[in-house]
């Protein structure tokens, strides 16, 4: 089924690329959604099986695959609405949708891959397709963002490859050649620690470009700034999850060796620095999309704090990752409506959003509450659990620093969002504001409420899957 899914999806991508007809475009997208959902349901029923030697339907993969499938529906719908409103050339439309389909497929394949080299290949594919999405508007700024993204991701992918080479060197001593995660974890005690250390350093540094942590987060900021709204939603939710999966699985290999504490230190450093960087930039940023992008970095920093802290933190990290995808993507979907009203991204020129689009304003307000992890948002639950794991792990200084930085972020985020929602806009001529149908905000409300529900009253199957996903780590 995996092979069928991959070939089918890439064929649809290819067809989208050559097709110029609007109706066939929509039909192909519907076909893709059916294929994606069919594959997801198949994966749920074939829990714990391995296909094609390289794809395993394990808990983490299935969780993130379901998340991707859920988010892909509004992504494609909003992309369709966005493109049809822009009056674009058929060629750029076909590139956009082909790239989006390829991106979604590569990410789902990377979720399920159980061999590190396969993850690496699909990560390369995501770079290629994401850059096509970022370059959609084809102006100077978009070119700049695309170039930065491609270049930094290319360097990061090379670093990951060096890490894979070191990993194979560490495996040499075990007399083995199979680089699949299962094999590596089984032989984790026999791996050469020197090479394993280097391998983790390089793989972690390389994948920080995808997950959005210090040091390679810079690629993502400009990318999310320049990509069209729905594409930016995908980039900042599901793509970051792919980076998380890769790092998580590599970390799981190290968790059973003597390098466990060293790996935790490295992750702590990166996570705290990421939250710090996000705080600094959130205070001065004036562009609403960049603000959302920095918020993503902050959330990923919190997630990695949970991973490094251990204990309940593992569970909380995965919960946070899933909920964050829902919240952040809904914010980015709402951004398109903001732009339609104000025609500007600069927060200085935005304001009084409640007057022009009440439903959208409610979404924005609720999204802000969710993103800053205030109750009743589900993110409150996961962040609270992460703080609890930091406290239980005696990392008190880290906890205090994180809390302080998060407070500043809440202030900065709140200052901007409340200005957009309530303060009258500066120099805004509101005679030509288009009427925005409340129906378009429905998807975002669904996502946000879904995040609340999953956080406060998660279904048993959901909890069971997460607990199974973290069972590979030492408790």
């Amino acid at each position: 089924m995996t092979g069928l899914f991959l070939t089918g999806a890439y064929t649809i991508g290819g067809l989208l690329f050559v097709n110029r007809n609007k109706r066939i475009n929509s039909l192909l997208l519907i076909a893709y959604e059916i294929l994606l959902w069919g594959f997801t349901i198949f994966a749920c029923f074939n829990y714990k099986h391995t296909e094609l030697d390289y794809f395993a339907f394990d808990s983490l993969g299935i969780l993130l695959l379901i998340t991707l499938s859920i988010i892909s529906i509004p992504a494609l719908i909003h992309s369709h609405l966005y493109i049809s409103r822009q009056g674009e050339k058929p060629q750029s439309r076909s590139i956009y949708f082909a790239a989006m389909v390829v991106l979604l497929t590569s990410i789902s394949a990377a979720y399920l891959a159980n061999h590190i080299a396969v993850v690496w290949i699909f990560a390369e594919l995501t770079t290629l397709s994401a850059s096509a999405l970022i370059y959609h508007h084809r102006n100077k700024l978009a070119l700049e963002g695309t170039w930065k993204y491609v270049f930094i991701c290319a360097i990061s992918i090379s670093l990951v490859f060096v890490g894979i080479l070191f990993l194979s060197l560490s495996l040499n001593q075990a007399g083995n050649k199979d680089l699949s995660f299962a094999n590596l974890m089984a032989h984790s005690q026999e791996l050469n620690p020197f090479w394993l250390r280097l391998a983790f350093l390089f793989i972690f540094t390389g994948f920080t470009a995808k997950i959005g942590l210090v040091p390679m987060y810079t690629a993502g900021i400009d990318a999310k700034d320049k990509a069209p709204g729905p594409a930016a939603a995908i980039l900042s939710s599901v793509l970051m999850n792919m980076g998380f999966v890769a790092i998580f699985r590599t970390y799981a290999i190290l968790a059973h060796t003597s390098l466990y504490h060293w790996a935790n230190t490295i992750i702590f450093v990166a996570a705290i620095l990421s939250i710090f960087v996000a705080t600094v930039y959130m205070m001065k940023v004036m562009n609403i999309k960049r603000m959302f992008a920095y918020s993503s970095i902050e959330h990923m920093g919190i997630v990695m704090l949970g991973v490094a802290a251990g204990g309940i933190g593992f569970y909380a990290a995965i919960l946070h990752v899933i909920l964050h995808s829902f919240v952040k993507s809904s914010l980015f979907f709402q951004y398109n409506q903001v732009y339609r009203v104000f025609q500007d991204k600069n927060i200085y020129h935005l304001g009084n959003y409640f007057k022009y689009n009440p439903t959208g304003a409610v979404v924005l307000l609720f999204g802000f509450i969710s993103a800053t992890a205030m109750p009743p948002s589900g993110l409150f639950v996961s962040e609270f659990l992460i703080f609890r794991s930091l406290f239980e792990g005696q990392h008190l200084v880290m906890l205090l620093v994180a809390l302080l930085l998060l407070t500043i972020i809440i202030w900065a985020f709140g200052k901007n969002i409340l200005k957009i929602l309530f303060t009258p806009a500066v120099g805004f001529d509101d005679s030509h504001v288009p009427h925005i149908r409340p129906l378009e905000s429905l998807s975002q409300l669904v996502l946000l409420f879904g995040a609340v529900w999953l956080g406060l009253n998660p279904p048993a199957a959901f909890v069971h899957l997460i607990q199974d996903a973290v069972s590979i780590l030492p408790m």
Partner: protein
Amino acid sequence: MTNILLILFIISLLYLSIANRLVTYIRVLALQGFILFGVTFLALEEINTLNLVLILLETVVFKAVAVPVFLSRLIKRNHITREAEPYLPNFVSLIITTVIVVVTVLLANSIKDTHVDKIFFIVALSSLFAGLYIIASRKKIITHVMGYLIIENGVFVLSLAVGNEMPMLVNLGVMLDIFASVLILGIFLNKIGDVFKDVNVDQLSNLKDY
């Protein structure tokens, strides 16, 4: 013989740190391609012939011929000026590159594993960090691309160190090479040359947190 070629590779890295003109960079990259061809030929004896021929072709055709030709055509087409504009004087670059090589040698000294040939490790890490340094210390965008190609060469040398046991990894490395080079060089540098009139990194600072 492999050792001589690899020492020659490091000398080319040192030369790159004091080179002034873009043409010299391209020539050094071509030379590195030929050196890698020799090293591949001598190092990978245990993998099957077809694989070996493919990898050899990739080093010679791609690294030594195609990429330098493409780069020189890019320079001519975009009227990029001859000089590689560094932020730091060349003397400092030379010192930094030498320090990188020394640090790598010291790091390699602490490896207790006898399976791996340490000279490969030294050359690979030196090229990696020297490439990163070249990217960070030069103004022009095309020197960034050349720095990335040097990183690729280093990664290739490292994959040769494990190549005998796992030829798949060498193939993956080759694939990375071709993919990244085609993507970066082929598509975007052309576009950048068309859109930005002066291919400096200063032009790429418009995306700010305004």
